[in-house]
């Protein structure tokens, strides 16, 4: 009960504060739209919000899934082989250091018109780094004693991976996945906003901008927040199922 009520109350207080702020300062809605302007904006474009929201969501999720596969793969390679770690790490850091906003036009040019592919690609590129690093660190910092326990019984490397290395890395993996979810949304929206004739919530945001429909822009922000929260809690739920043991009770 409290777990639902307290966050809801916090949201209501936040909205009231926002409304009051706009009202007290008497801001016009091109400076800052107030929550009461948002609902009409949602309602007017409810069809678009649904279809574009879905587009943004599935692209983000697909990008994220690819990021998980590639990230875990890279993480495993770097986690198990020191040579590979030393070789790949600077490369990955450099790749990650490039602001993805600058990659967006390059990708858009590379695959002109492939809007879905481009968007998924950026979502993937922006979010796989934390996953790769966390898996690599998780695997490479596995205490040798853990390995020895199984190795001394003649267990194979694969058995050691499944029984010890993988489960032991799960908490780090889920920590990184929570970061990756937020990043993937950034990636999806960057591409949706920049692409001409794009689709998705980013494109809706962009059309709000071109039409000076400020309440619509704010409404998109809220919709993105809602999607972000939903996906984040899906990850939290998966974490509870697969790595719940890492959570110590508070006493």
């Amino acid at each position: 009960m409290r777990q639902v009520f307290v966050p809801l109350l916090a949201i209501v207080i936040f909205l009231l504060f926002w409304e009051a702020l706009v009202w007290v300062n008497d801001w016009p809605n091109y400076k800052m739209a107030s929550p009461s302007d948002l609902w009409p904006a949602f309602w007017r474009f409810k069809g678009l919000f649904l279809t574009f929201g879905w587009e943004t969501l599935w692209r983000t999720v697909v990008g994220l899934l690819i990021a998980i596969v590639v990230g875990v793969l890279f993480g495993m390679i770097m986690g198990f082989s020191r040579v590979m770690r030393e070789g790949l790490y600077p490369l990955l850091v450099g790749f990650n250091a490039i602001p993805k906003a600058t990659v967006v036009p390059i990708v858009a040019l590379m695959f002109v018109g492939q809007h879905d592919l481009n968007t998924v690609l950026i979502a993937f590129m922006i979010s796989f780094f934390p996953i790769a690093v966390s898996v690599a660190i998780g695997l490479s910092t596995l205490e040798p004693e853990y390995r020895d326990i199984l190795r001394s019984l003649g267990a194979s490397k694969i058995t050691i991976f499944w029984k010890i290395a993988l489960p032991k890395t799960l908490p780090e993996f889920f920590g990184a996945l929570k970061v990756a979810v937020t990043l993937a949304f950034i990636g999806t929206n960057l591409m949706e906003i920049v692409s001409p004739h794009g689709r998705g919530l980013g494109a809706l945001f962009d059309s709000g901008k071109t039409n000076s429909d400020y309440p619509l822009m704010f409404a998109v922000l809220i919709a993105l927040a809602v999607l972000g929260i939903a996906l984040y809690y899906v990850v939290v739920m998966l974490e509870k199922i697969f790595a719940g043991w890492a959570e110590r009770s508070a006493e």
Partner: protein
Amino acid sequence: MANIPESKTGDGDLIVIDGVSHTYKTNTGPLPVLDDLTIRVPRHGFSAIVGPSGCGKSTVTRLVAGLMKPDSGTVWLHGECVVSPRSTVGMAFQNPVLLEWRSILKNVMLPLEIVPSKLDAAAKERRARDLLKLVGLAGFEDKRPSELSGGMRQRASLCRALVHQPEVLILDEPFGALDAFTREDLWLTMHRLRAEEPFTGVLITHDLREAIFLADEVIVLSGRPATVQYSLQLPDTGPRTLDHLYTSEATETLNVLRDQIRIAREGEEAGQ
């Protein structure tokens, strides 16, 4: 040390470490740790290995477990040359290394998932439960390791080392991180386990009282590179009570060993 006659291994000693030398390659150059080390442990014997810190005691356990190969010399188990890990060995370390995502029971059963066994699932579980009961952990089978105290975790770790009925039990300072009372409790548990199902044991320890309380033979290693400096056969081999540690004989034995450790450390300092 290439031509060791086969007969060397056949005379009742279960573990034979025969003329083993080993040098680690480190960033700062070669680091010799073992120098022509020879140790024999008879079947169902229990040897404690003591020596200055960092003299290569843990290397000995890794050699016996087959986790590494020596530069020269041979380790024999049961008359077979040890070249790779074998499932007839059980290990416990100072850190109990229990898997946090498994219950205590599942932790103890881990070796049974790897070692080929004739037991069916129910028998395996019964075996693990019996062991846990023997060390006083009945009722904790479904707890997570994080819910147990350090001493209890170490008990569970001992159960895991023994669950597949290994011929050889290797203990690398298993009680080093425990408080004095818990440690004494676990010493008694060790005797109980040994009486219940005999194994051949090698115990690495820094605690001389622990060595003379648990072992049949105490081996003092010299400073690095380690070789056997002194070995002492203890008069009692069976179960003991803690009172035993407070007799004048025990004090005398401890003094002899303490002297040997001092000599080992002086030798090491002189060598540096």
